[in-house]
């Protein structure tokens, strides 16, 4: 080991949502004096508004901190933050691969949760030293002894001496930092060896191009070096290297064991994919680091400009988002009902919601999203295979031999009192219980085999609602499996509205059809004529509702010449109409598209 490495600690903080990861990260940054209290925004690492609002971290942030230990030495802490959601498992795993240890934050009032476990397993896969920390120790409902026992029992790591902190109050942070020095191993690797560096994140900067976050495992990288990305095979010249503390600080070079950023005039994030290995073009390493995979979109939906919104604006915004998000992609598509728009691929439902919200908030766009869909493997009678994610592209049934749908392995962790209701909602969604284990006397981990198409609709909402927020979910793709799925269409006043079409399992078609029709009845306003709403499979109508016609919409009196009042009234009416989308003869409010996806407790 080189001398300088002895004073480096590379670690991540892993935790379940709401267990206080970001707050703890804030306290650590504050304690190491990197950012003064005054500069400190709440939860420094989550720098997108959306993330702050939702209390989750989507985009990674990495920070280099200096800690003066009681042993008299100064240590460099590279705190590598990880995204906190199941949709981003691969990114989490690559971030963890950049570390030697993980600080596992467990809420002392809640105990171990499904996602905590999922992340712990990821960390174990990378052979990290796991260091449990109990947070929210200040709360009266904290039960540290029980939770410690739980950690030992469930995760199998020693928790007796786990630091007890309150990130909110800032207590116990100093002790935690000392523990990090003691427990988490220093990095290894030889700076004289051939360069091997892991890309664990990247973002796009308007001036520098793609900025790569990297952990150097072997060798060193200097400005002017010609580097090669081993999986993509492309070469680039390094224009800058540096470290984040917390803003970018340029340095001469990055050496084995260190974490920092590299710029090399790369044009888009997709060219520097997370998990790829950087080596020197002149003297490349024999093999890339293990674990690289190209992330696949699991969920697709159509995004269309809403009435009055420009197609070009939406396209520009999607392009900007794509530059920064290798997991998101889109291509143009056309819908008879919605006109020109885009088919977009996402890692999961949350990822989709985030993109849509960013379009609306950061870019101030009005968009319509269609029902999310998974990718179906359609095996045609001639033996060829077609991957279909847009219901409208499903071939004619006579040409289809069979259809396969993606299945996931879902882990659901709940307090035992909710097991019954979880089984119910899983069964409704065609889930097969693989097994069930008692983690502790009160907590159960249910392992389900489930179709992804059931997970993406409203499963998460249903889970949260049925368990009062105590249930947690983690899932990963397992395989494709033959399934009796059919295309269900929605007809408004006898006209098919393709934007509402969805692929559903045969056994669910009737209930889904009834649900969608009932929801649309709620949101579609009365017209001058009756509007039948029908769900159909092929020619067969499986559900029907009717929006009755209105008869009267007139102001009889004249308000004594108060034309302004009348004008305002009409403007209000027009405003309401603006949010409508015309399908044939029927006006449909934009919210209809989300309404048909929302979980309804009473259905």
């Amino acid at each position, binding site marked *: 080991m080189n001398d300088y490495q002895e004073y480096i600690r590379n670690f991540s903080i892993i935790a379940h949502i709401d267990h206080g990861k970001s707050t703890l990260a804030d306290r650590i940054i504050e304690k190491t004096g990197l950012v003064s209290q005054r500069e400190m925004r709440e939860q420094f690492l989550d720098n997108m508004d959306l993330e702050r609002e939702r209390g989750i971290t989507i985009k990674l942030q990495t920070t280099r901190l200096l800690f003066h230990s009681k042993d008299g030495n100064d240590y460099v802490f590279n705190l590598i933050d990880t995204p906190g959601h199941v949709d981003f498992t691969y990114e989490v795993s690559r971030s963890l691969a950049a570390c030697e240890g993980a600080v596992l934050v467990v809420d002392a009032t809640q105990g171990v949760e499904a996602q905590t476990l999922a992340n712990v397993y990821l960390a174990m896969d990378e052979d990290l030293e796991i260091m449990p920390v109990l947070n929210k120790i200040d709360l009266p409902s904290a039960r540290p002894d029980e939770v410690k026992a739980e950690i030992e029992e469930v995760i199998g790591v020693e928790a007796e001496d786990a630091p007890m902190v309150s990130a909110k109050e800032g207590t116990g942070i100093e002790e935690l930092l000392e523990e990090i020095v003691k427990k988490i191993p220093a990095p290894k690797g030889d700076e004289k060896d051939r360069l091997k560096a892991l890309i664990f994140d990247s973002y796009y900067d308007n001036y520098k191009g793609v900025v790569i976050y990297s952990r150097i495992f072997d060798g060193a990288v200097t400005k002017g070096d010609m580097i090669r990305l081993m999986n993509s095979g492309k070469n680039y010249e390094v224009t800058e290297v540096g470290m984040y503390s917390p803003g970018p600080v340029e340095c001469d070079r990055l050496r084995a064991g260190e974490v920092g950023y590299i710029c090399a005039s790369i044009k888009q994030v997709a060219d520097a994919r997370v998990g790829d290995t950087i080596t020197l073009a002149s003297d490349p390493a024999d093999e890339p680091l293990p674990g690289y995979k190209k992330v696949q979109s699991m969920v697709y939906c159509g995004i269309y400009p809403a009435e009055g919104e420009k197609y070009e604006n939406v396209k520009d915004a999607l392009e900007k988002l794509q530059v920064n998000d290798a997991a998101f992609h889109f291509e143009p598509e056309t819908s008879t009902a919605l006109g020109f728009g885009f088919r977009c691929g996402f890692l999961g439902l949350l990822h989709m919601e985030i993109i849509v919200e960013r379009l609306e908030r950061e870019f101030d766009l009005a968009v319509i999203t269609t029902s999310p869909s998974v990718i179906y493997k359609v095996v045609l009678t001639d033996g060829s295979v077609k991957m279909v994610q847009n219901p409208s592209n499903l071939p004619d049934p006579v040409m289809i031999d069979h259809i396969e749908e993606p299945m996931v392995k879902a882990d659901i962790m709940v307090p035992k009192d909710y097991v019954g209701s979880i089984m119910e909602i899983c069964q409704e969604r065609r889930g097969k219980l693989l097994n069930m284990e008692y983690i502790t006397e009160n907590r159960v981990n249910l392992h389900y085999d489930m179709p992804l198409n059931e997970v993406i609709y409203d499963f998460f909402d249903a889970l949260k609602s049925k368990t009062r927020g105590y249930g947690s979910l983690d899932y990963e793709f397992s395989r494709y499996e033959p399934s009796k799925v059919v295309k269900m269409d929605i007809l408004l006043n006898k006209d098919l509205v393709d934007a509402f079409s969805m692929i559903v399992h045969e056994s669910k078609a009737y209930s889904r059809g009834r649900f969608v029709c009932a929801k649309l009845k709620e949101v579609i306003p009365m017209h001058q004529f009756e509007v039948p709403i029908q769900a159909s499979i092929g020619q067969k109508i499986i559900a029907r509702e009717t929006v009755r016609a209105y008869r009267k919409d007139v102001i009889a009196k004249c308000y004594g*010449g108060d034309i302004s009042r*009348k004008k305002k009234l009409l403007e209000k009416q027009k405003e309401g109409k603006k949010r409508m989308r015309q399908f044939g003869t029927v006006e449909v409010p934009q919210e209809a598209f989300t309404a048909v996806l929302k979980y309804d407790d009473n259905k």
Partner: protein
Amino acid sequence: MTTTNDLGLYVHVPFCRGKCSYCDFLSFACQNDQLLKEYARALAVEMRTRRQDVEGYSVDSVFIGGGTPSLMPIESFQLLMREVRDNFHVEEGAEITVEVNPASLTREKLEMYRECGINRLSIGVQSFDNRTLRILGRLHDKNEAFNMIQTARKAGFDNINIDLIFGVPTQTLKNWIDTVRQGIFLQPEHISLYSLQLEKGTDLYRRVYDEESLNAVPEIVDREMYHDAVTLLKGAGYHHYEISNAALPGYESRHNTKYWSYQEYLGLGLGASSFFRGQRFKNHEKMSRYIKAIKENKPPVDEDSIEKYTEREEMGIYVFTGLRKAEGVNLKEFRDRFGVDLFTVYDPAILRRHKGMINLYDDQLYLTEAGMDVSNRIMAEFV
């Protein structure tokens, strides 16, 4: 020779004996004449403050509305009319209307109105069915209404409007049609038909939607009431010239027509609206503010209400108000006024979207009778 512009004058009298159950107009229950007298004096001052502003205008219609203007004591009313003539140039043959209420009208007052030059009466009959009148909270009964119209005739009024309301809770199609028939039998020159709107804050709204002690008339019945009444009126020779108004030919209300024909009018009194010299504004609705301005000898205009609309907005107003009239909007007049063609400003697809509801024929853009039922939706296309 100087050219003059026509002007309508509206005078608001915001007092009633009691508040009717459906009323959300600006009016107060008032039991003593003192207040009415003071208010008439305030109106007189307001008129004087406008004297300069109306230079170049001549008044071709005066409408004294409320509230219940017939509550006003004789001397006060005389003062009011004197001031009107002193401060404004009232044309020979101007239409001068006063709104009256059967419960507060006397023979004596009717004669005074004649003497003051009132040549049109608008009587708030509302219904010839006593139960309906009670639900509406009206203070008169059917016989009083009947008698009052006869008395007005005897007093020499040859231009009478009666207001009728339909869609009143408990009212049936049959007793509404009976009311219309009785109205026609009395041969007023003008009949207004108002579809009752249950407005929040009114007693009737509360009884229907909060207490649920009364049932609202279903929309479909309300429309049947409307169309049946229109058919009856047309059969009796009335001209259905505006959504809520019908008149014997030549007796269409000049004053109301101003509102729908983009003509100027000046409102006087509490909360009265004006469209004057290109501006739309309202007087203060708070009595204390109104009186304060009067004491300072200033027009009591609520500065916050002044709207200076863009040309495009004015076009919208022109069209949506015009569409209230049966004849609708004339495309040539629109072009003459705004210098552009109506359908370069508005999407011609509106005609297709509301097929059967709005028509274009011989340069007139107008609502059909079916279109009048849903006029708001169509008008909203133009704002």
